[in-house]
Structures are given as structure tokens and as C-alpha cells.
């Protein structure tokens, strides 16, 4: 019995020793990992926002420990299709957040329109001696549309993704899309799912279940369809305004009240009275003093004329 007890205690000691060793090594390994910085990574993303010119986002970051840190002030040249001087889209330097944004210049419109697929190449312009960074992405030209239907009281949001194939736009299936309502601090999905996958006709749809969601004063809300970070098509977004929200009307317009922060037509009465009183008193005094100077002037001229008259009388008297 005693032997058995000793064996158990011995095993427990062994187990504790192993656990301590493992935790010690893992902590030291994590610490070592935290202090190690990996080389800088350059990456490139394509964005086609709604009603805006497509743009590219260049990101420079490096892994410090277990998380990525932005790398700023990296000069980058971005090329269209081939890394040649004639295909240079522009040069840009990453900001403090390690990001830089570049629109596609209008001079590339003809090349842009003629192609269905294009490659963007980013190359860092670091001084000699530093390792050059490169990144590229190939994007297929695509278009994302959004539509709504309302049948038998059921509201549905549909989004369709088409890619350009030859001269035709062909639907794309099996693409995850976000269908959401634009809110102040982010987008809220229209249904219960976070993403909706497109079917063979390129359409993904979701029933709109946010019936009581507050809209603007007319009850309008903005529906958003997004394709996020897709390897083939990049980032696409489109919007539509619909009157499916609850109209919110403030009891009284904030700017219709006579306050210090309202428009100039709603100045508080006490301020109007005080300001105008001061202006009238001070400027009234200035006008009064101006008349006093005119009075001094008149008095001077009067005396001057009297003097002249006296002199005339004296001169006439001496002549007589």
C-alpha cells in the first residue's frame, strides 16, 4: 500500500516537472518569437468602389513577434501589366499606417478598356543595399450590381457578379458576397448570414429581415453588396438606396432653435440685443464725435470769415 502511494507521489512529481519544463520552454519560445522581426512584406489590393474610380492599396508591414506592424515611408512604384517605365501607374510612399492609395490614371483608359484581365506590379524603390520588395496581383474585370424585389410582403436583396469574357459579361458562380445595410459605424447584414454565395446565374440573394431598422427622415436606408478580398476579382462594392427603413423625424430640428450653435438666422435674442446695443452705443459715439469735429471746423471758418469781414470794413474805412 505504502509502495503504491510512493509510486503515485513519484508520478505526480514527474508530471509537475514535465509541465514546468514545457511551460518554461513555451514561454521562452513565445518571448523569443515576440522579439524577432521578420522582413518587410509588400502587398497590393484592388478596389472598385461604387461610383468611383478603381484604386490600388499598397500595404507594407512586418511581423514583430506575433502581430503585424505597419512599415512607413517605403517608396513604391506601381506598374500596369509589365514592370516597364511606359507602364508606370505612379510612385507613392506608404504613410504612418503602412498604407498608400493610388488611383488608376486616366491616361491608362484605352489599355484598361481593351483588356479583360490585368496585372498590377508593385516594386519598392529602396536605396541600393536594401532588399527590394515586390508584389503583384492579377485581376479579372468584373461588375457587381444590386437589385431589390418585394413580393407578398417579402423583401429580397439580390446581387449579381459578372466577369468580362471576350465582349460579353458572364455570370460568376460560387463567389461569397456580403449583402448588408449601411449603418453609421459599419454594415449590418440584411439577413442572418454573414455572406451569401452566388449561384450559377451569378446571383446571390437574401431575404431582408431588418424591417424596423431606422432610416433617414424619409425612411431611406442604403443597401450594400460587397465582394471582399477575392483573389480573382479584388474588392468590389455597390449600393442602392431603398425606402425600407423606419422614418425618423426629430421632434424639432436641432438647428431651428435659437442657440449659440445654430445658424445665423437663429441667433439667441439676448445675444442680438446685447451685440446690437454695444455696436449702436459705440458707433453712435463715433458718429457724434465726427459731428463735433465738423462743428470745430465750422467754428474755425466762421471766425475766419468774421476776421476777413472786419478787415474789409477797416480797409473801406481807411479809403473813405
Amino acid at each position, binding site marked *: 500500500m505504502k509502495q503504491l502511494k510512493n509510486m503515485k507521489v513519484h508520478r505526480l512529481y514527474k508530471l509537475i516537472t514535465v509541465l514546468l519544463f514545457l511551460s518554461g520552454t513555451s514561454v521562452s519560445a513565445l518571448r523569443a518569437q515576440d522579439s524577432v522581426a521578420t522582413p518587410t512584406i509588400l502587398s497590393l489590393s484592388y478596389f472598385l468602389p461604387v461610383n468611383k474610380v478603381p484604386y490600388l492599396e499598397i500595404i507594407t508591414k512586418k511581423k514583430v513577434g506575433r502581430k503585424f506592424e505597419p512599415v*512607413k515611408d517605403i517608396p513604391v512604384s506601381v506598374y500596369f501589366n509589365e514592370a516597364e517605365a511606359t507602364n508606370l501607374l505612379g510612385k507613392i510612399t506608404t*504613410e*504612418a*499606417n503602412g498604407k498608400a492609395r493610388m488611383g488608376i490614371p486616366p491616361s491608362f483608359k484605352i489599355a484598361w478598356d481593351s483588356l479583360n484581365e490585368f496585372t498590377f506590379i508593385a516594386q519598392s524603390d529602396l536605396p541600393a543595399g536594401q532588399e527590394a520588395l515586390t508584389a503583384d496581383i492579377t485581376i479579372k474585370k468584373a461588375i457587381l450590381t444590386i437589385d431589390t424585389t418585394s413580393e407578398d410582403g417579402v423583401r429580397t436583396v439580390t446581387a449579381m457578379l459578372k466577369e468580362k469574357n471576350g465582349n460579353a459579361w458572364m455570370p460568376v458562380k460560387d463567389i461569397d458576397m456580403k449583402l448588408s445595410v449601411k449603418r453609421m459605424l459599419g454594415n449590418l447584414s440584411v439577413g442572418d448570414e454573414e455572406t451569401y454565395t452566388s449561384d450559377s446565374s451569378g446571383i446571390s440573394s437574401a431575404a431582408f429581415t431588418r424591417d424596423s431598422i431606422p432610416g433617414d427622415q424619409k425612411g431611406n436606408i442604403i443597401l450594400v453588396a460587397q465582394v471582399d478580398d477575392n483573389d480573382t476579382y479584388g474588392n468590389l462594392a455597390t449600393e442602392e438606396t431603398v425606402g425600407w427603413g423606419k422614418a425618423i423625424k426629430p421632434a424639432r430640428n436641432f438647428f431651428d432653435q435659437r*442657440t*449659440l*450653435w*445654430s*445658424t*445665423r438666422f437663429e*441667433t*439667441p435674442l439676448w*445675444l*442680438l440685443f446685447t*451685440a446690437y446695443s454695444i*455696436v449702436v452705443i*459705440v*458707433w453712435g*459715439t*463715433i458718429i*457724434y*464725435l465726427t459731428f*463735433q*469735429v465738423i*462743428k*470745430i*471746423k*465750422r*467754428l*474755425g*471758418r466762421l*471766425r*475766419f470769415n468774421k476776421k476777413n469781414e472786419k478787415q474789409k470794413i477797416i480797409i473801406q474805412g481807411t479809403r473813405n
Partner: protein
Amino acid sequence: MDNLQNLSPEQITNDLLPQKFGRRGMIWTAGLVVICCIGAVAYIKQLREGLIVTNMGDYVSWGIYISNFVFFVAVSLVGSLITAIFRLSNVPWRTPLTRIAEIIAVSNITFAALIIVVDMGRPERLLYLFSHGRLQSPILWDVIVITTYFFLSLFLLYITLIPDVRIMILAKNKLGKPFSKLYRWLASFWQGTPAQEKIRNRSITILCIVIIPVAFCIHTVTSWLFATTYRPGWDSSNFGAYFVSGAFLVGAGAVVVAMYVFRRIYKLEKYITEMHFDKMGKITVMLALLYLYFNVNEFLVPAFKMKKEEKDYLNGLFTGDFAPMFWFAILVGMIVPILVLVFKKGRRPVPMFVVGVMVVVGAWFKRYLIVTPTLLHPFLPKYDSPARFNHYFPSWEEWAITMGSMAGALLIITFFVRVFPVISIYKTLEDRHALNKQNETIEEYESAQVI
């Protein structure tokens, strides 16, 4: 004062009539004109290219221009101090200082108004301030009060100048033709009759009464431009008094500097005496102590609390990037002047001049410190802004325009003293007459036989 008795009216008139520029005067004027021209070129560049030529940004949207504006407004306050307060309190030795104070006030308020226009990206929209201005905005109050103070200062300068201009019209043989038309246009009507004199004296008294609250208002309203904005360093109920006390100090410093310069150049030792420096020294030390008191209030109390939102701003001033400038402004602008001026020897002309320069220079940097560090430390965290927005150092265009505006203010004073007497001849003769009469009365009293 007493040495006026020994001077004849002719000698006083001759001494105080404006004089032609000598070689030094011409070089000084040419230098100022050149600086003004460089400033004008920089301003034209700014007009053509926009405010992008400045180093101002989303955070430091009020840079050196607004610092300079606050400085000009502060200096302009001196007109009311010397002329109005001294006159209403019947200070007997004020005569040689009043004209200097008045022209300093006019020149500085002129450039305070102009520098605001310079700070506007679209100056052609100036009239919109009146046509679309919100009366709730302290900016509109400032525009109104500065315009008012400008006209009041100009009025005060003119009305006190009238008898002197008449003297100059009479002394046309000595002065020559250059400005005779201007003199005739300004004061040919002045005959010095009792009726005219009565109206003029009453007008000056009314002006002096009105100008004091308006002068307080210009600097108080200017302080409210800052204090009504919720930012570290500006969120203070003390700001009006803090600004006004600082303005009185820098104004007194500017008058002392001008007194010394005019005394030396125009050889006015008989009129601006050591007594005047001594009295102004006492006033300056009192004002410096007052301003130091407000500074202690403005910085010690927030530093004691060291609120999280204000910590970076205060540390930046006390020990950070702005520390050399901050301690320079405190030491050179207040503490050293106090230490020098408490001693009688420190209130003699030369040390007074040096102290006056220190006060003015310290005050300019103090205004820069009021504006810039606060803007660099907003309450809301900076987000997604370029790195250059975290620092501010004026561009060469900003420096050129600022220097040009300062040269412009000095140029107004320079041209004024070329055309008009820097000390009122009429008032000096009046003082002399009053002194002689007083002495005659004393003599009569002393010689009267007691029965």
C-alpha cells in the same frame, strides 16, 4: 517736467517739429520697405497658389499668422493705456508718451486687421464675414471690435493732433512744402478759440472713456477666439484677464523701446527725461508681475491636476519640444524684466530699452506658444493623417509675410514721425504755461506780506 520752464516756446516748437530723415533714417526706411516688398512677394505667391504654400495643416490651422495677429492686437492696447487711462487719471507726466502710444496703437491695429486677411485662404470673401457672418461666432465679434478700435484709435490720434498741425501750418517756412497741403487739409480750420478748445477737450474725454472698454474688448474677444474652443491650454475661464494683462505688458514694453529710440534719434532728452523712464519702469514691473501671476494660474493649476488629455500638451511645454521657447518667454519676457526693473538703476534709459526689447520679443514667442502647441495636441486622437501634420514650423512664405507685416507696422510709425511731431507741441507748450503760472502763484504767495 521742471526743465520745461527753462525752455522758450520757440525752442520747444523747433525741437519738436518733425525732422527730415538723415542717412540712418533713410537706411532704416529702405530696409523696412525691402522687408515689406519680400513679404508682398510671398503674399502674392500665397494668393496664386493658396494656403498650400504655408506649413499649416488639418491640425495646426492657425500658425504664425494668428500668433502674429494676437501679438499686434496686444501691442495696440497700449494706446488706451497711456492716452486714455493716464488722461482720465490726470497723470501729469504723460505728455511726451501719449503720441508715441497712439501711433503704436494705430499701426499695430492696422496690421492686426491685415494679417487676419492674410490668414484667409480666400481674401476676396472677406465681405462674406459681414454678409453671412453668424453673430454667435467670436470671430465676427473680433472683426467688429477690431474695426471699431481702429477707428477710435485713429480718431484719438487725429483729434489730439489738430493743434499741432495748425502749428506746423504756421511754421511752413521752416518745414517747407512737402506736406503743407496735407496739413492744411487736416487742420486749417483750427483757430484755437475757447469754443473750439472746449469741444476738442470734451471730445477727447469722451473718446478716452469709450476707448478703454473697447480696448479691453478687443483683447478679451481675441482671447475668446481661443477660450470658447474646447482644447488643451485654451479651456480656461481666466483667458480674458490673462490676455489683457499680457497685452498691457507688451504695450508698455513697446512704448519704452519707442521712447528710447525717439529720444536718441531726435535728441529729446529735455522732453523724455529719466523720470519718464523711471515711471514707465515702475508701471512695466507692475504689469510684468501681474502677467506672471496670470501665467502661474494658467499653467500651475493644470499642471497640478495633470489631466490625461492635457498631459502631452503640458509636458511638451515644460520639458518637451516647446520647453526652450516656453522658458525663454517666461524668463526673458517676465522674470528678468522684473528682476532688473525693481532696482532704480534698472529703470534708467539704457537698461529700460534692453528690458523693453526683451519684453516685446518674449511676448511674441508667448503668442506663438499660445497658438501652436495646443493645436498640435487635440483632444480627439489624430487619425489617418500624414506624419507632417504632427509638427509645425512656418514655411519661408509665412516668415516673409510675418516679417513684412512687422516691418509694415514700423513703417507706419516711421512715416508718421517724419510728417507729424512725435511729442505734442501744443500740449508741451500748455504744460510749460501751466508750470510757469503755478510758479508765479507760488512766488506771489511766498512774497505776500503777512500782516
